[in-house]
């Protein structure tokens, strides 16, 4: 995502014309003094390994321990001193148009981020800062990579205050720039928040269960899926065989019941370990999950040790993705993500409901201005020719394998011929069947304001995008697709991909025409400021 920020064509001048005269000269501010404490703790952490190293290398003699302590102390003092210096030298200034951060002990760096470029302000609390009541404030600008501005650490109150302030400044500016009056800046107090989605411990527990079964399911699916999966099974059988033939007597001596019992115990341990891992992961990540609808957008808080607090302005939501996994889908669980330009922990889509029923998802996406496709939506499938072609292409690999291995075995080991040939042929059938089945579940619909695409048999995944917020439309065709008259429709979605494969050419053109009609009617900057 190299796109700096939306509306970058509007960088030009006149922002300064609106310089607020009421503002006093902004003062550089320091972060919370307790940040030095965090730095000190970090230094202590760094000192542990050298201390241990010196102590062990001098093998426990008296002066060795002293030396170790000396080294450790030196590291801690230096680290603490530098962390103090860093704190002294780090200032931030909340200006009229931008926030400026100056930092650096020896070399100085000054960075300025204009308010209108700030997409999100998120607060992050790792475990240690959290104990001290500190937060790291991150300014998401949509710049690619980890190049976003971050202030570590402020006190919780100061962080919240700063966030509020920046939002107001940004909204005031957006309002002033667009020339339309904006209703937001009038609210300077904390706007009333409406909880959209929460997950209590019960829900987390259920979620945790599914996180486990998935791991197992993935392994099983991986085994059963394609040829390499079968090789693995073969290897496992070989290994087991070798093991048993090695200690045949021992095992036989143990008796059949004991064998079964030990196997069961093994399975049980795997089960316990698996569910514990899943459970722990879910609880640490999603603890206290709260999604709210505030006047400024969606606000999501979650995390047990590292607590994050992210706000997504509504108009920055480019599309939504509803996904699920095979097993939880049987029980009606889905997850909901927002596609947006800002980054969320490295991924470009924001999880707003990691584990929810469809009826819980409906109000969330309605709040974001989307609708689940209605029952009478006009669904379109991919071309039947696409179905045929992809079934053939996917099974071709296995058929070729069958021919090659079949010829080889016929020459060298004819008695294995049937066995060797039947495996890839069965796989070919499976691949073809999977394609035919997948085709039935792959469809798209175009309504007045949005475009929906759904696919997946075991774990269906739906993508909904606003027609208005698409940026380009492409019809791509490979050689087969050209011959057979279908193509892939690629829609330019900021922060995500939106592609519908195998659409009959006429329909593809219709989709593109319709989408373009909506796009061309409104300029990008009008969307961004609305």
């Amino acid at each position, binding site marked *: *995502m*190299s*796109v700096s920020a*939306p*509306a*970058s*064509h*509007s*960088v*030009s*001048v*006149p*922002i300064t*014309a*609106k310089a607020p005269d009421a503002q006093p000269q902004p003062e550089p501010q320091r972060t919370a003094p307790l940040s030095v404490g965090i730095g000190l703790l970090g230094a202590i952490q760094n000192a542990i390994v050298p201390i241990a190293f010196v102590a062990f290398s001098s093998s426990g003699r008296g002066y060795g321990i002293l030396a170790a302590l000396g080294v450790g102390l030196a590291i801690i003092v230096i680290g603490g001193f530098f962390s103090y210096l860093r704190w002294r030298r780090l200032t931030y200034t909340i200006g009229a148009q931008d926030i400026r951060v100056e930092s650096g002990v020896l070399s100085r760096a000054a960075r300025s981020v204009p308010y209108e470029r700030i997409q999100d302000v998120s607060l992050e609390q790792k475990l240690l800062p959290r104990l001290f009541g500190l937060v790291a404030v991150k300014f998401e600008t949509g710049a690619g990579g980890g190049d976003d501005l971050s202030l570590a650490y402020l006190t919780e109150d100061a962080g919240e205050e700063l966030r509020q302030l920046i939002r107001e400044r940004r909204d005031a500016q957006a309002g*002033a*720039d*667009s*020339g*339309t009056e904006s209703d937001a800046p009038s609210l300077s107090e904390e706007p009333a928040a409406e909880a959209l989605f929460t997950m209590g411990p019960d829900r987390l527990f259920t979620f945790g269960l599914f996180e486990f079964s998935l791991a197992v399911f993935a392994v099983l699916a991986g085994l059963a899926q394609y040829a390499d999966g079968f090789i693995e099974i073969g290897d496992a059988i070989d290994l087991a065989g070798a093991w048993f033939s090695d200690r045949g007597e021992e095992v036989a001596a143990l008796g059949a019941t004991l064998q079964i019992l030990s196997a069961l115990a093994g399975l049980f341990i795997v089960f316990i370990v698996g569910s514990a891992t899943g459970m722990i992961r879910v609880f640490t990540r999603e603890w206290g999950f709260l999604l709210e609808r505030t006047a400024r957008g969606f606000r999501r808080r979650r995390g047990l040790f590292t607590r994050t607090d992210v706000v997504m302005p509504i108009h920055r939501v480019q599309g939504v993705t509803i996904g699920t996994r095979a097993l939880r889908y049987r029980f009606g669980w889905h997850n909901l993500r927002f596609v947006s*330009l800002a980054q969320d922990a490295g991924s*470009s889509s924001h999880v707003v409901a990691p584990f929810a029923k469809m009826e819980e998802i409906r109000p969330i996406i309605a709040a974001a201005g989307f609708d689940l496709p209605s029952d009478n939506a006009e669904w379109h499938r991919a071309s039947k020719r696409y179905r045929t072609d992809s079934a053939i292409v996917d099974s071709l690999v296995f058929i070729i394998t069958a021919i090659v291995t079949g010829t080889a075995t016929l020459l060298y080991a004819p008695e294995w011929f049937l066995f060797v040939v039947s495996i890839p042929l069965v796989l070919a059938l499976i691949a073809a069947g999977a394609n035919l089945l997948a085709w039935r579940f792959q469809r798209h619909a175009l309504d007045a304001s949005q475009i929906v695409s759904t696919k997946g048999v075991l774990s269906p995944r739906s993508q909904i995008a606003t027609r208005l917020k*698409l*940026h*380009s*439309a*492409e*019809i*791509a*065709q*490979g*050689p087969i697709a*050209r011959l057979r008259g279908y193509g892939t429709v*690629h*829609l*330019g*979605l*900021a*922060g*995500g*991909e*939106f*592609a519908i494969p195998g659409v009959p050419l006429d329909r593809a*053109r219709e989709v*593109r*025409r319709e989408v*373009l*009609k909506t*796009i*061309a*009617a*409104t*300029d*990008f*900057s*009008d969307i*961004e*400021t609305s």
Partner: protein
Amino acid sequence: METTAQPAPPASPIDPQAVQLGNLVDDDGEFTKLHPNYKTALRVRAALTALPVIFGAMMLEGSLRGQSPLPFGVIIGLVVFLAVLFIVRLPSRRYHARGYQISSDRLRVVRGILWRSDTVVPFGRVQHIDVDQGPLERFFDIATLTLHTAGNHNASVNLPGLGHALATEMREEIRAHIKRESM
């Protein structure tokens, strides 16, 4: 968005005629061919790419002389034949496969011989515009027009092989359109 003084935007930011034009330009319509110099430029580029291979073939032929079961000139003949296809035939096909259509509110770019792609970018979604000229392009007085959008797919749409004057003219036109729309 940048002009502060403007009152609320007009009811319809685009006149109906333009929409109609935009529709006319869609899909099946014949696209405009690129500048004829582009074909030549493609050929020169292909020749420059093929040259080292031909040299390599000559050296191989020379070093294998007398030791190879093949009669002299087979390798070089084959390579030269392929190079001629590559230099003469391919640029011509590529040139005919490429084209564009520009209307009052969108640009359509078509390209690809085997893998065809047919992209439409509405001017209202263009983030910024580049006109680039490499040394070869400067020699042939052609340029590449690149439209950047905010979408992940088609973040930049290239249209090579326009006459330089035309490319700058198109850039101005698109820019003017963006400005008008955003006021």
